[in-house]
């Protein structure tokens, strides 16, 4: 009996282990023809792809986007609910041209063009420009030259530094042996360390540069004979922003890590009492949430689903640093503030806290430090104000006007009392009518 129990237990364990093994099996990979998509998202170039199961591609209108017909291995990753492509092991370009049709008529046929991404503020800043054709090759060559120059400078620096160290050792020995002193001017200056180029240009590759007006299209890849390559026909929806304006990121002095956002000009900033806040202004655009999320995350079948009637604001590019924020009261400009760097300084002691101070790069206390953020500081007394962003020429940026109001902390009983006003009036009306009726009903006595 005891043996049988053990056998049953071992069998169950074996089944469970086998089942667990099945569960842990890698997802099935399938070779598919897909579109690699590099869409312009309004602030940067994204990266997604359209596998077999996805029939519509979404792109922004009137800007350059990159599509490429590729063959790769595709699998569905259930943990994150998205399609994945095995780009590292299997990535083959499908030769051909991209045919674009609208209402059944061919409107253009695109050839692959060389392109690359130029990151003026460095790769990790996210912002890049798309360079096409010769410009791409030229920028890549410039980057290679800059890197070569940098390594050349590094080599020269090492040599110079070695010479400097040798000279310093000699001086030190001389000082020790002879006791001769050197003034600061007589001492050799250390060589300056070269800095690598911040900007970056990616490798030149080829793709179809798609730039279309708003509309619905059909795309497919055709071979040299004009035959449609199987699995390349997709719908293409090109959409545009609904509104554009200026969005603000508002950093309250009391909670600097928890900024609030104001995107829509109909939004009002309410505050309680006197407040200090730091504002960062962005050019912002409002897009249909479904289309935008599909454009940026097409590999996720659930992205944007159910959001066809929702809209979202996207902060695109921060306004130039010479933009000023004007504060108005009763239509008059009472204050104008400009962008400045700020540093969040932790206050010592048991009580956790911080203070936000203006960052001065020349000051000794900030040596080796960088500003925590750059923003426009506003200190407002209780009242009602309007703010707006103005550019260097004094022009008010469209969609930048916002109202700021300080609320009054009213005791709630006052509001509830106000609510009872109609019923009080009703009682007066009803009682008045009854009295009138009573008077009218009184018998007339002689």
């Amino acid at each position, binding site marked *: 009996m005891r043996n049988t129990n053990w056998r049953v237990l071992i069998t169950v364990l074996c089944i469970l282990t086998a089942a667990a093994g099945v569960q842990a099996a890698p997802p099935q990979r399938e070779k598919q023809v897909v579109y690699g998509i590099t869409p312009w998202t309004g602030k940067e170039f994204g990266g997604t792809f359209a596998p077999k199961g996805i029939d519509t591609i979404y792109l922004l209108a009137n800007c350059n986007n990159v599509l490429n017909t590729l063959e790769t291995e595709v699998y569905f990753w259930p943990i994150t*609910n998205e399609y994945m492509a095995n780009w590292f092991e299997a990535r083959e370009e499908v030769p051909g041209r991209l045919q674009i049709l609208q209402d059944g008529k061919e409107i253009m046929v695109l050839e692959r063009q060389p392109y690359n991404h130029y990151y003026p503020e460095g790769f990790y800043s996210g912002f890049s420009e798309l360079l096409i054709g010769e410009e791409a090759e030229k920028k890549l060559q410039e980057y290679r030259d800059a890197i070569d120059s940098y390594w050349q400078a590094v080599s020269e620096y090492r040599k110079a530094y070695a010479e400097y160290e040798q000279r310093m050792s000699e001086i030190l020995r001389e000082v020790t042996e002879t006791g001769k002193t050197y003034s600061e001017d007589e001492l050799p200056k250390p060589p300056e360390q070269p800095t690598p180029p911040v900007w970056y240009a990616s490798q030149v590759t080829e793709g179809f540069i798609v730039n279309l007006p708003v509309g619905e299209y059909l795309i497919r890849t055709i071979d040299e004979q004009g035959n449609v390559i199987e699995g390349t026909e997709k719908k293409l929806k090109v959409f545009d922003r*609904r*509104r554009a304006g200026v969005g603000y990121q*508002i950093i*309250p002095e*009391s*909670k600097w890590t928890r900024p*609030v*956002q*104001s995107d*829509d000009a*109909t*939004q*009002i*900033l*309410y*505050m*309680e*009492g006197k*407040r200090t*806040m730091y504002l960062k202004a962005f050019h912002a655009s409002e897009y249909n*949430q479904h289309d935008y*999320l599909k454009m940026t995350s097409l590999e996720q079948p*659930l*992205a*944007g*689903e*159910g*959001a*066809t*009637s*929702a809209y*979202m604001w996207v902060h695109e590019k921060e306004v130039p640093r010479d933009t000023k924020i004007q504060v108005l009261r009763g239509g008059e400009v009472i204050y104008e503030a400009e962008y400045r760097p700020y540093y969040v300084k932790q206050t010592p002691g048991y009580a956790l806290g911080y203070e936000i101070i203006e960052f001065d790069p020349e000051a000794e206390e900030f040596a080796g430090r960088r500003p925590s953020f750059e923003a426009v500081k506003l200190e407002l007394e209780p009242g*009602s104000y309007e703010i707006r962003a103005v550019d260097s020429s004094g022009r008010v940026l469209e969609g930048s006007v916002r*109202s700021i*109001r*300080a*609320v*009054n*902390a*009213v005791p*709630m009983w*006052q*509001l*509830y009392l*106000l*609510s*009872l*006003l*109609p*019923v009080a*009036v*009703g*009682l007066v*009306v*009803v009682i008045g*009518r009854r009295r009138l009726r009573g008077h009218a009903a009184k018998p007339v006595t002689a």
Partner: protein
Amino acid sequence: MSKIRYRTNAINVIARRDVSSTVKGLGIYVVASLAFLVSMLFVRSNLKGVTENGLMVMVNPLNYPFFIAVTIGATYLALTSTMSVSRERDQGTLEVLFYGPVDSVAYILAKFVEQLVTFLGLVVVYIIIFFAISKLTNFGVDASFLAMAGLSVLLAASIVAFGLLLSTWCRSARTSVILLLVLLVLFLAVDIVAGILNSLSAKDISVTLVYIRVAVDMINRVLQWISPFGYLNRGIMAISLRSARFILSSIGASLLYTVVLLALAIRFLDRRGVRR
């Protein structure tokens, strides 16, 4: 007298009588106070939010409480018109009226005008009280609030027309009242849930919520042509986009919706007759 003049006269007499009866009763005042009390809860919550957080960004915090007050007021008026049509039929008043110079068009329009006039009075009281609240709290009365007040008349017109349609379509007063309440609650619930789901960050939304959002979105897409709140939303959106074309088309659509409901109510009244 021409038919139109007869009708105008009948509409005038019936509407005046009903408005007078509504104004002299306590019901409308109680409902107005109730609407304010409910909306004050939202005002309180917004006020508390600002005082606790120090800074808060929002669309005028009086808009939503005003919308709640308008919905309560308009629903009450739709209920009273629904009950009054059914009661007048049950008591034989309708039959007697129709022996005189009153027909289905005059009767339905009179009921509609009566409720609309009452609502206009109510909305004036609403604006006065909300103006007082805005002064007390400094929430402010901005263009979006005034636009909301203007659109609320269209919302009330469509809710009242919806109530009249149900009162002429249903067999009994009880059925029409229950149906009106159930449908209005459903329309409002879908509208609110869709709004909440759409405001959720797309990155944080779970798979289950995505499926719920898809279902609600599909229902909402159908309801936005049936529900009076759908027309209100279109109006609010058009105003926020500051597009004259959208504003005019949303007002036009709302008026058309009301006219269609009234036309259907007249047709149902004609088909059912005025006898008990």
